[in-house]
């Protein structure tokens, strides 16, 4: 495990050093995309559910990274910085989609079911759909923490670096979220 952490740190150092030089910037950026695209994709997917939306969020994330990497001060890890961008992009995307949607607020739940069932890249059962519905009902911070822990399997320290909340607060948030989701899914699963 320690070896994996060290490997990640080494990769990050290599990427950053390439990004700092104009002649190797593109090479460094491509390496960055190859290294992190999968993790960031799944994180986006868990927030927006539909593949095409996750694809757009992922592209927007990397474009922001491309334009903003020169301002990256290295105070946080590169990965947590990009995680934060992905989360913001996904939430912004969802807000824009909600504003544009013809589905009314009351129908937000059935809108989610329709989107998932219409997505050819979703093959989940009812419980999975209900879990996604339950997630949508959580307060934003709680939803983020749940996604980071349940799906992305990040440690509380890593999550703390991304969202800026104490580890104790995160644990409480996660525990609440888990309970609420279980209650919701059990109540609606039939």
């Amino acid at each position: 495990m320690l070896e994996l952490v060290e490997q990640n740190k080494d990769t990050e150092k290599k990427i950053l050093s390439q990004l700092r030089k104009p002649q190797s910037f593109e090479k460094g950026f491509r390496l960055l995309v190859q290294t992190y695209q999968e993790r960031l994709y799944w994180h986006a997917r868990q927030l927006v559910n539909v593949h095409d939306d996750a694809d757009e969020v992922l592209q927007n994330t990397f474009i922001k990274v491309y334009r903003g990497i020169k301002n990256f001060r290295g105070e946080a890890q590169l990965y947590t910085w990009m995680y934060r961008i992905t989360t913001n992009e996904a939430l912004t995307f969802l807000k824009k989609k909600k504003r544009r949607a013809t589905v009314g607020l009351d129908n937000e739940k059935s809108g989610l079911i329709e989107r998932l069932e219409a997505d050819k890249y979703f093959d989940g059962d009812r419980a999975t759909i209900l879990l996604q519905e339950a997630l949508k009902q959580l307060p934003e911070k709680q939803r983020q923490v749940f996604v980071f822990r349940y799906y992305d399997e990040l440690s509380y320290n890593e999550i703390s670096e991304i969202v800026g909340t104490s580890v104790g607060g995160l644990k409480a948030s996660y525990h609440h979220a888990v309970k609420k989701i279980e209650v919701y899914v059990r109540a609606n699963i039939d």
Partner: protein
Amino acid sequence: MKKNKINKELEELSPFLSNLKKDKKESFSMPANYFDKFEDRLMHRIEEETALTAVPNSENKKAGNFLSKIKAFFRPHYAIGFSTCLLLIIGSIYVLKPIENPTNLDTMEGLLADGSIDTYIYSHIEDFKTEDIVAFLEVEEVVGIQEDIIGEKAVYSAELKIEKTTETVKSSMDKALDAVAVDDLLEHLTEDDLELTEDDLF
């Protein structure tokens, strides 16, 4: 080890969700070779966007009022007919003009292909001369925009009048208050008036 710890925590909190999690990755799939192709698609998009921002500005700067009206006109559900015309004009300008940077032409083709010309026009509206835009509009459309402007001005004037009237009233009230001595005011206050309630606190 970290994963085990996380899964163990979940099992203790909710065996139900723990079981659900084991199947999670099978629910979401993606197109074959998605990640293999993603990098090239991304770099292509970055090149296109970089080329777009490099397009030189033509001489412009129009009267703000008329320009903001034109901008509002370019909401997607209005813009289709107009932007199609403008698209053809811009496309022909790029074709006839000596191309210094081939990417610009590729970019134009990209815009034509994916229909993002509307977004481009909307965000670069100041780059277009008012006369050029007006030249492409139908007469009724120009009249409509001008009527909206006149209507807005009328509303604005009316609002200004109301504001001035309100100010006058306030001034009269202020003057009336000034005429009353503070002691006289206090004399008429009761204990109930002075007591703060929860609603008074922010």
